[in-house]
Every structure is written in C-alpha cells, then in structure tokens.
C-alpha cells in the first residue's frame, strides 16, 4: 500500500529548476533512499513534502489524502516527521524536553487542563516522559537526559534529533543526511539504529551520501539529478545503472568535448 | 480646496519619502528598523537652525551643515548602538534602536530646551495663483529640493560603484565580501546617506512649519517607516511612492474625514497594507 505519493513535484527558484517533475512513492514499512549529487534537489524535495516550501507544480499525498496547502504542523499530525541536514535542536532545553516536544501533538492537552493539571494530565505527562526516556534509551542517550541539548557532541545531537522525530510517532520518518559529519564509528552506530527501526516496521525516507548505508539498508533507491528522477529501483539495480554512476562521476562521453 | 489639500499632502509626502529612503536602505542592508531616524531628522533641523541663528552663515551653508551633522550622527549611532549587536536575535538591535531614540530625544531636550524655535530667517515666499489654485512657492521649493535629492540617490545607487556595492551587500554579504567589498564600510556609507537625507527632510519641515523642537522627529519618523513598508521595505522607488501616498492620504483624510485622527491615518493604512499585501505595493526585499 502506498503511504507517500509524490506526483510531478516541481519547484523553480527564478530561472533555476531545483526540482522538476519528480514522482515517486513510498510503501508501508519500506525504506527508500533518495540519493543524487549535490544540488540535485533532494533537500528541496524534503522541504516540499514537509510543507516548508510551496511547490510550483505537483502534489504530495499521504495515505491517498492530498497534503496540498497544509501547513507543516498539520502534515506532522498526519504522520510526517523529519530531521534536518544541519541539526536543529531546541538549544534552550535539555535533552529530555527536546524529545517531549516531539510528543506534543500526541498529547493534546487543553489550555485550562494544562494550567491546573488534574490526574489525567499528570498521567499523560508521565506517559510522555516514559516514552521519551524509552526513545532516548533506544538511541543511546539515556544517560544524557538532563544535559542541555547544546552541550551534546555532534554525533549525539544527530541521534537526539532522530529520537525527537520518533516521539512524533510518525507514519513516515524522513532523515536528511543522518550520517553527515559522523565518523565511521558513529556511522556504524547509526546503521544499527536504523536497522532496529526497520525491524520495528518504521517507514523511512532517507537522503544520504554514504552508499554503504543506503545500499545496506534500503529496499528501494530513487536517484535525483538536476531536479529529475533519473533512476529508481532496488539497490541491486541501482548499483549497476550507468546513469547513476554518470550522475556522480560525470559522463564518459563528456570527455570527447573537452 | 481639494487641489490645495493634494498639494499639502504632496509636500508632506515628499518629506516622508526622504526619511523613508533612509529607513529602507538601512533595513535593506542590515534588516534593522532604525527607530532613531526621526531623531536624526530632528538633529539635522536643530543644527541648521542654530547655525542660522548665529547670523554668521548663509542659508545654503546651514542647510549643508545640517545634513552633514545628521550624517555624522547616523554613522556614530551605527558604530555605538548597532555594530556591537550585529548577528544577535533581530529583536535586540530593534530594542537598541528604541533606546537610542529615547536617548537622543532627551539629549535634545537638555541641549535645546522644550520650546519651539521658529526658523531664524524669513523667506519672502509669494503665493502664486495658477488656474485658481494658490501655489505657495515654499511648497514648490520643498518639492523641487526633495525630488532633486531623490533623483540624486537613485542615480547614485544605480550608476555608481559604491551604489551597486551597497545593493550587493543587501543581497548577499558573503559574496559581496568575495568581490572585495568591505561590508562594514558599506553599512556606514548607508547610514551616512540615509541620515543626510533625513537631516535634509528635518530642515525642510522646520522651514515649512516654522518650528523646531525635540519631539518633532517622532511622528514623521514613524510615518516614514510606515511609508517604507507601504512601498515594500528595501525597495528605493517603493519608499518614495509610499511616502507620497501616505502624505496625500493623510492630508485628504484630515480634510474630509476627521482632523483629530490625522496622525492615525498613516498607521491605519500601514496595518491594512500589512494585512493584505505584506510585501508592500512594490515588491520588497523580504519576499
């Protein structure tokens, strides 16, 4: 069953076509990689899907319902969560609070009930906190719960961002270069974490440049180059696709011109 | 009557436009509302009035000195109140600008006293009647002078090296630096020009209303900022258009709607514009 459907999505900035007629889908329980060279339009795609940008043309739908025109917070409530290429944590909060922020939309506590909390609210808060601590344990940050988010090391911040996104209990989790800036140890840890998520049946859409991660994890890979899908399929096909190698390394026939 | 009001509005509008140019240029390059712009306007007027009062200098020297003093004040202000705050949350320089505005206003109160000062020289302006419309040559002179300064500024921005460099800094500071442009210097230059124009506007208004006083800059400053937003902030022709529109709307509104709410008209228009067309009439930089 198709969870996310991206249809003829386009975004032009002035004369530049950052995303140009991109279509692909993500099925339930699937892990899809979105790869391509720098400037191919991957992050723009993410921003269009999560509603931070308005497309020039095209549509995005989740479970058959169009997300067109919906603000990012409604999309989040429909089940989209994401992380950012340059990590964006709430620096003024501690680690636990960051994750609790992710629980926000599942709590739905009314204004007055939050001010004079009865047993129901307190129970909801306790549940949220338990869940947040579980997620912190999952990403290996249980010990860091009380640290200010600012004080974490870079790799820990990446994992915290994933925990916060998971707290949203998303139908689809979108990760934008989760391995960027990580050393090889940290990348391995991340792989293990993502495999764990896969086993739990979480649907993932990942932008990543680390091919080991992409090829080892994804069921399907979509390759973008200058704003268009140039290839899509299982990793075994993608790794043999000459167009993909071209996109990364440049064209063989270009050489003739030079 | 209508034409007379229109002309009054155009005159005030031209002056608002001059101040609005300063706001819009500074906002364009730093993203900062320089709330003290109205106080710079007031200082320009005071310097010219005091110099003329000595009886030692002629009108044009005093006018130039007023503009120069305003320009220097603007540059000093940027150094002291804004540069140390660059890169912090946008609210911080905004509040600093408010502080600077209060400071300068009360400084003027201490230095010059609370009373209105008349403009020291009397011009022998005649009112010419053209087709039944009484045209004061004072209004004519203000319109011509303001228009002249605006044309000069537009030419400067469009055709000179430094003008283009200022625009480049407003668009992309890092890349401007790669071109060898010293961003700090361009910011100072922007303050210099914007403040000089405000100083000129202050002197014109001091002549027009024959009054100079410490709080004279408050409302024209705020209205000029509204004009800058109205025209699309960061947009130079927009600031001129916005200033003129506001001046005319205010004058007609005071005449035909209610004079008690004259000062509210500019802000009412501002709020309406922001609600329905936040990017201003002409497109601003912020979109």
């Amino acid at each position: 069953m198709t969870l996310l459907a991206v249809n003829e999505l386009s975004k032009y900035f002035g004369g530049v076509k950052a995303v140009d007629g991109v279509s692909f889908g993500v099925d339930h329980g699937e892990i899809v990689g979105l790869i391509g060279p720098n400037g191919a339009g991957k992050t723009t795609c993410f921003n269009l899907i999560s509603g931070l940008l308005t497309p020039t043309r095209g549509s995005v739908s989740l479970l058959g319902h169009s997300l067109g025109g919906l603000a990012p917070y409604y999309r989040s409530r429909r089940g989209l969560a994401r992380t950012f290429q340059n990590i964006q944590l709430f620096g003024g909060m501690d680690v636990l609070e960051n994750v609790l922020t992710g629980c926000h939309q599942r709590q739905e506590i009314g204004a007055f009930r939050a001010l004079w909390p009865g047993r129901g609210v307190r129970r909801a808060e306790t549940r949220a906190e338990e869940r947040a601590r579980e997620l912190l344990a999952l990403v290996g940050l249980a010990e860091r719960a009380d640290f200010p988010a600012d004080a974490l090391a870079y790799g820990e911040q990446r994992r915290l961002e994933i925990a916060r996104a998971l707290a949203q209990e998303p139908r689809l989790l979108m990760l934008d270069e989760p391995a960027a800036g990580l050393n090889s140890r940290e990348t391995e840890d991340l792989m293990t974490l993502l495999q764990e998520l896969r086993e739990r049946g979480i649907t993932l859409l990942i932008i990543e440049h680390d091919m080991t991660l992409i090829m080892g994890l994804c069921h399907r890979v979509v390759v973008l180059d200058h704003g268009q899908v140039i290839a899509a399929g299982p990793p075994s096909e993608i790794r043999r696709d000459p167009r993909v190698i071209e996109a990364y390394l440049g064209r063989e026939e270009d050489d003739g011109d030079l | 009557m209508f034409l007379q009001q229109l002309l009054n509005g155009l005159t005030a509008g031209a002056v608002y436009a001059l101040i609005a140019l300063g706001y819009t240029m500074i906002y364009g390059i730093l993203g900062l509302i320089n709330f003290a712009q109205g106080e710079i306007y007031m200082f320009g007027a005071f310097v010219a009035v005091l110099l003329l009062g000595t009886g030692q200098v002629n009108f044009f020297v005093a006018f130039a000195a007023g503009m120069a003093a305003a320009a220097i004040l603007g540059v000093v202000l940027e150094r002291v109140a804004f540069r140390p705050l660059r890169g912090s949350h946008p609210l911080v320089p905004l509040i600093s600008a408010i502080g600077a505005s209060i400071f300068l206003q009360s400084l003027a109160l201490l230095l010059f006293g609370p009373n209105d000062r008349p403009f020291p020289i009397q011009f022998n302006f005649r009112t010419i009647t053209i087709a039944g419309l009484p045209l004061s040559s004072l209004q004519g002179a203000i319109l011509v002078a303001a228009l002249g300064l605006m044309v000069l500024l537009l030419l400067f921005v469009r055709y000179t090296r430094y003008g283009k460099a200022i625009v480049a800094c407003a668009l992309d500071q890092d890349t401007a630096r790669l071109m060898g442009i010293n961003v700090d210097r361009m910011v100072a230059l922007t303050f210099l020009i914007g403040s000089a124009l405000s100083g000129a506007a202050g002197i014109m208004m001091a002549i027009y209303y024959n009054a100079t006083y410490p709080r004279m800059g408050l409302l024209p400053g705020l209205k000029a900022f509204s004009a800058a937003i109205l025209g699309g902030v960061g947009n130079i022709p927009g600031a001129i258009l916005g200033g003129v529109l506001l001046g005319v709307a205010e004058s007609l509104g005071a005449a035909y709607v209610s004079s008690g709410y004259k000062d509210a008209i500019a802000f009412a228009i501002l709020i309406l514009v922001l609600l329905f067309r936040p990017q201003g009439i002409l497109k601003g930089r912020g979109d």
Partner: protein
Amino acid sequence: MLTLKSVQAGYGKLTVLKGISFHVRPGEVVTLIGGNGAGKSTTLRAVSGLLPLWRGVVEFNGADLTRLPPERIVTLGLALVPEGRRIFASLSVTANLELGAFHRRDQRQARRDLEEIRERFPLLKERASQPAGTLSGGEQQILAICRALMSRPRLLMLDEPSMGLAPRMVNQVYKILRELKDEGTTLLLIEQNARAALKLADRGYVLETGRIILDGSAAELREDPEVQRAYLGKGYREVWE
C-alpha cells in the same frame, strides 16, 4: 603559489577539516575531489577567508592569509566562484560583472576588461541589462565565473561549477575552464564531476572526511580505483563492483 599547512576548520562543534596540506603552483590546474561531506567546499571557504581557521596556515605568494578577511584576500589576486553561483539576482548582468572588479584600482582598465568579456561571451552582452536572477542555472554559472575573472585573479578557485547543471551546460562551463587553462590561468577546482575535473586538471588531491588520502597527477588518479571508492562514499567497492 598557494600553500596550505595542516589547516583545521569547521562549524560550531563539527570539525570538518582535520589537518589539510596541499599546494598549487603557478599555471597549474589542481583539483580537489572527494565524496560529499569530505570538506571540499569548507577548504575553499577557509582559503578565501569566509570561514576562520582553527589551526594551520594559508599562504599565497608569500603573504600569510591566515587572519585576513575575504575582502582583503581578493585584492591579493585570489578569487572564488562560490558554490551555488551566488550571483546578485536582482542586479543586472552588467552590474554583477562590474562588482567583480569592485576592489580594483585601475577602473579604466576594468571597463576595458568588461568589454572584452562581453565580446567573448555574447550571452552576457545580449542579457546585459536583465536581472541576473532570470538567467538559467548554466548561464548564471558562466556569469559567476566571468564575475570572478573581472577581478583579474592570479588564482581562480571554483566550487563545484557543474553542480545542478544539465550535461550540455556542464560541457559549456568546462569548455570555458579549458580555455582559461590554455591561457595560463591558475585554477583550483573542486568538483563532484570527477571525470571532467580530472580530465582538465594537471594534479589532484582526494579528500575523505576532512583528510587528504591520496594525491598525484590527474592521469594517475583517473586510473586509481581508490578514487572512485573515496568519491562515491564508503563501501563503494561492495556497491559498484
């Protein structure tokens, strides 16, 4: 001409360059290649002064660039065509070119250079008064290169000039770079388009996660399977072989 000695730099907590040393000799075309996140753009940002160095030294023709701001560095003859072109979108094509020569003292000569460039690239003449933002991506890239040339650089640095461009435009951009090379311009080129870059370059360095792991002549690197591995990211071998 340009020498980097154990340069370290990064953003916030993240160390991107973990001690980079390389050099460029006059008249050479040198390329830095490597996978995403290897630190290529960061290297150029550090050399051009946009990013402060944490450690190490950058020298250019005997001058120490380490603490100089970018606006001073460009006056020494070191120009950068930044990643993503960064043209001044609302200014005219001509104004963009003129700004490239902003710091030059010989403005009269700069005007002659402008004419020359416009003769050479008719596109820039035809669109002279059009806002630069209305150009296509490839046209913007050509404009960005010409804007940098207007400063008469002794060393021209290019950050991924083929990024996001259609193959036809990549060819056109590389044709220009080839001509510059033939005229004797010294180039430092960062590329993801490794084939094109190594075809053009005399020498190359391969970066991986903030370190130089390989260097050699372009011809050697073209044949080296390790390059493809570094370039396509970790695990390339398992993936593509």
